[in-house]
Every structure is written in C-alpha cells, then in structure tokens.
C-alpha cells in the first residue's frame, strides 16, 4: 500500500525534531512567508505563484493542444490561401475566432480550480468524529460513514471522505487522481489535464462545443478546397497531391468529429437535465433505481432553467485560497519540521509543499488501519489504540486518572499535535488554526472519562 512509507513518521520525528528545529529556527526566521498553495495537500501542480492550478498528471493536455494548433496551423497555411482566393476572406476570420475561442476555453478549463473543497481542519474532523461515535459507539465495527439528508423531499446519502475527513456535500466526489474532493464533480478529463467540476464545467462545455464547431468547420473547408481543386479539370488524386496537408487535416478532423460531437451531444443532455457525468454513470437518479416517484432533486424541471443555471449561473469563488499567506507562526515551524522530517524518513521525491500531505496521509493510514485491524474488537473507537506508541508522552501530560489515553471522539490528530507542537503547522492549510489542540483535547478528556468505561478500553501499562 502506498501509505506504508508514512508509518514511521511519529516516533523518530518526535525524538529528532526538537534539536533540528532549534538549529533551523534561527535560519528560518528570515524566511519569507509562504503561500498556501505551497502546502496544499492534494495532488496538484501550481504555476505563476499559485495563480494557475493543474492536476499533477497533466495527462494528454499537451497532445490536445498540439493537435489543435497543428491542425489549425495547417489549415491557415495551406487551405486558407486557396479558399480566400476562390470564396471569401471570412473563412480564415471565422477560423481564427473559433481557434482562439477553443484555445482560451481549453486553457481556462485546465488551469481553473474545478471546485476543490479544502480538507477539514483537525478541529472540524474531531467534531465530526465525536458526532459519529456518540451515535454508534456500541457497534462491533465502525459505523458505515454515511449520513442521510432530505433534499427537496428526497433522501440523499452523504458519504464520509476519509482523506478529507468530512462528510461530502451533495454532488461532491473525491477524485483519486487529484486526491481532492471536488464540488459537483463531473469527471476527471485527461485531455484537459484537470477535473471537471462546479467551477470549470462551463469552460469545459464551451470548449467541446467550440471544438465541435471548429472541427466541423475545418472539415467542411478542407472538403470544399479539395472539391474545388478537382473541379478545375484535375482528378481527385492530383488535387490531393497538390495539397497533402489537407489530407492530414481531413484524417484528424474525421476522427475527432465523431468523438467531440458525441461528447457535445452527451453533455448538452446533461446540462439540460442538470446532471453530472458521475451521476449519470452511476444511475443515481434513474427511474430504474428509484421505486417511488423521484428523480433528480437538483433539476428545475425546465430545460432552459437548467441550462442557464449550469452555464450562466453565478461564478462561485475558489475555496482553496491558493495565494493566501500562511501565518508566520506556522511558516517558521513548518519549515523546520519539514527539514527534520524530510531528513528522517524516506520520502518520495515530492516538492516541499507536500509536508501537509504527509501528515494527512499518516492520519489516513492510521484511520484505515483502525478500520481494518480492529473491526473484530468492539474496543475504543478509532484513535485509541494508536495513541499507545505516543501514549508515553501523552499520559505524562494528562492526569494520572486518565489511565487510558483513549479519547473517544478525538481523532488521532490531537495526539500527533500534542506530542509535537511543530506538527501543528503541518495540519493547517488554514491560518486560523492557531489555537493548539492540546487544551480542547485535555478538557474533553476530563469530560469523557466518565463514559469511557462503557465503551471498553485498554488501559496503558
């Protein structure tokens, strides 16, 4: 499993980080404050100091761009002169406008934040854990993490995202390629090198529509060109020999048209019924699955309204605040901790902005191991057994009566942050998380101890 490499983060980093932090502290004092995109936990690449966002694996975006530029280049170079002479000057003008529209839409789709939801802060995650655990603490296994809500009198299930540590809003899905929850997730498009979600769906739609027009236009013009050439007393073969580039364009356009036109038609249907590709594929609202009278709860039951809402609705803001600055309190320790932890364990060659990702992944691996290895024992809810390695340090801070550092409802994150204050910074992609979790956790311990014995816990030796 990919997460194995992050298991050793805690014990060794604990012992080393104090000294190395002291060494680095003075150097790092003069370090510039970092922007939030540098510690973004998802698998994304950022350019222009956070202005431009792209998926880590940009897929075949260069190929898409290359195909479009090459085809249009050939068109303008070889077909347009003939057509301008024989038909009208508007042909390259229309071609140029369409080309610009296609390229701009493509770049906007690729470089726009699709509607990424920032991950829950540790306090939020702890609060949610507490709510889940208080409702299902007596079950044998951790309760299936779903929550049912009513939307427009229809039952919708919200799933809990283990990576982002929150209940996903409706229509949100977690993209495994980008490792982010994306609002109104449509699909991850490799041609565009990004997810398609709430914020860039309109750009994507305008890209495929304009691309359909462009390919149809070029196809039509090239066919006209060859036809006109062959009408001037030459055979078709001769006409083609005179303009070989046209054949290349014909082939590209012919194969593109099928796929692009098909895709445009499909997405037009989706827009008109206010569906996402994700929902359509899963058949979430299909009449076969829903027995009683139900359908898409998000649809306005009017094609024009649905289209307007999806394509011309208000442009939601980016929720991840890429260019905001991390507060100085976190920036300095973050660098120190990053230096310490980077030297201590084998890291894949990720850039520095993945330290937060490491902590999130280690928490995730801990949670996953909870689920897998302790499902047969109705013991403390997730979080308790794993505090035992850290328990030595933890229990020295807690009162002696807190024999079990088991804190139902408090996720593994507080133990991490308690044992190493420098770890606090790694949790936050949010400057407001400045109030260290020790105090709430400790205060909660005193509250919860009374209930702990009901659940059953392993006392520390």
């Amino acid at each position, binding site marked *: 499993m990919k997460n194995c490499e992050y298991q050793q983060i805690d014990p060794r980093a604990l012992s080393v980080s104090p000294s190395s932090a002291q060494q680095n502290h003075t150097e790092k004092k003069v370090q510039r404050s970092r922007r939030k995109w540098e510690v973004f936990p998802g698998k994304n690449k950022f350019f222009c100091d956070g202005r431009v966002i792209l998926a880590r694996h940009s897929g075949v975006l260069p190929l898409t761009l290359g195909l479009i530029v090459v085809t249009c280049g050939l068109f303008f170079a070889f077909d347009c002169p003939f057509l301008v002479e024989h038909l009208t000057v508007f042909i390259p003008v229309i071609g140029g406008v369409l080309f610009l529209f296609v390229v701009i839409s493509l770049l*906007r789709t690729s470089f726009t934040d699709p509607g990424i939801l920032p991950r829950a802060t540790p306090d939020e995650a702890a609060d949610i854990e507490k709510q889940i655990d208080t409702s299902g603490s007596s079950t044998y296994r951790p309760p299936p993490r779903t929550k049912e809500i009513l939307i427009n009198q229809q039952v919708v299930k*919200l799933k809990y995202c283990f990576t982002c540590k929150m209940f996903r809003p409706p229509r949100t899905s977690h993209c495994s390629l980008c490792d982010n929850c994306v609002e109104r997730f449509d699909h991850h498009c490799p041609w565009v090198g990004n997810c398609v979600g709430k914020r860039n769906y309109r750009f994507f739609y305008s890209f495929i529509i304009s691309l359909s027009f462009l390919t149809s236009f070029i196809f039509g013009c090239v066919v006209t060109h060859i036809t006109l050439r062959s009408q001037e007393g030459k055979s078709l073969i001769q006409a083609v020999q005179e303009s070989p580039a046209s054949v290349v364009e014909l082939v590209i356009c012919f194969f593109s048209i099928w796929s692009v036109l098909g895709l445009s038609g499909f997405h037009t249907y989706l827009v008109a019924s206010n569906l996402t590709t994700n929902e359509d594929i899963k058949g979430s609202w299909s009449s076969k699955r829903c027995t009683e009278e139900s359908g898409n709860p998000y649809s306005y039951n009017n094609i024009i309204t649905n289209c307007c809402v999806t394509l011309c609705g208000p442009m939601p803001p980016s929720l991840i605040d890429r260019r905001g600055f991390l507060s100085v309190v976190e920036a300095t320790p973050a660098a120190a901790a990053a230096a310490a932890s980077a030297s201590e364990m084998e890291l894949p060659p990720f850039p520095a902005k993945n330290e937060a990702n490491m902590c999130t992944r280690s928490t995730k691996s801990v949670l996953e191991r909870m689920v897998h290895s302790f499902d047969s024992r109705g013991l403390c809810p997730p979080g308790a057994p794993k505090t035992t390695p850290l328990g030595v340090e933890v229990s020295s801070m807690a009162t002696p009566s807190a024999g079990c550092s088991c804190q139902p409802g408090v996720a593994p994150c507080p133990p991490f942050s308690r044992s190493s204050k420098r770890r606090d910074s790694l949790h936050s992609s949010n400057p407001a998380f400045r109030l260290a979790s020790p105090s709430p956790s400790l205060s909660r311990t005193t509250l919860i101890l009374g209930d702990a014995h009901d659940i059953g816990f392993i006392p520390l030796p």
Partner: protein
Amino acid sequence: MAETHSLQDLQQPAASSKVFVQRDYGSGTISKFQTKFPSELESRIDKQQFEETIQTLNNLYAEAEKLGGKSYLEGCLACLTAYTVFLCMETHYEKVLKKISRYIKDQNEKIYAPRGLLLTDPIERGLRVVEITIFEDRNIGSGR
C-alpha cells in the same frame, strides 16, 4: 482536574473550544447554514441573536448565488468574451463575499467578542461550517 487546568494556563493564554455550525442541504447545494442553536452557546448568547446572525448570513449567500437577470447577463457576457472578462472584473459573488466578511467582522466586534466568542468567516473553512470559537475565562472553573 486542577493539574490539567494549570497545565492549560502554562501552555495557553486563553483556553478555547470550538463549535461548528454545519451546512443545511435541505434546499439543495446552495450555501445555507443550519439555524439550530448549539447547546454549548446557551450560556453565552441569546438564541435569537445567534439565529439572526445565521439567518442574515444565509440571506447574504442566497443573494450571492441568486439566479436572475443580472447573473445571467454576467454569465452571457463572460461566455461571449471567452471568460476573459473575469480577469479584469470582480464577479457578483466576490462582491457579496466581501460584504459578508464585513458583516462578520462587524458582528464579532459588536456582539460576539464582548461575550468571549469569535465567528470565523465560513469562506476560510471552504464554506463547510461556521466555526465559533468559545474563549474560556481563566477565572471561571474548569474547562467545558
């Protein structure tokens, strides 16, 4: 208990806990927060005052996401200019978000800070929750 309390004093100038007001998805995916009054705030603030704050926030978000002539015009204009117009113009949503920030700051100064509470702008939490930080008074007994 006493040891815990003094440890808290050594580590933190002011102990605090957080309450999260979650989203209300009853009307779909629009930004709306639950107006249910959290029990932790019972001793700190009026139920009505709190509900009024949340309701005003909900109304402001509804204004930002309102579908109407103006937003459609903005959308169509953007589409025609291949969305380059957003590079120079601020969207209606962003303008309302600024209004919301000012409102929250105002509420904090006038109503919440005097009661030892702090509202965090939901946009800083990805519009997931309204985070309310409760500052414990050291002079009062153990933490809640």
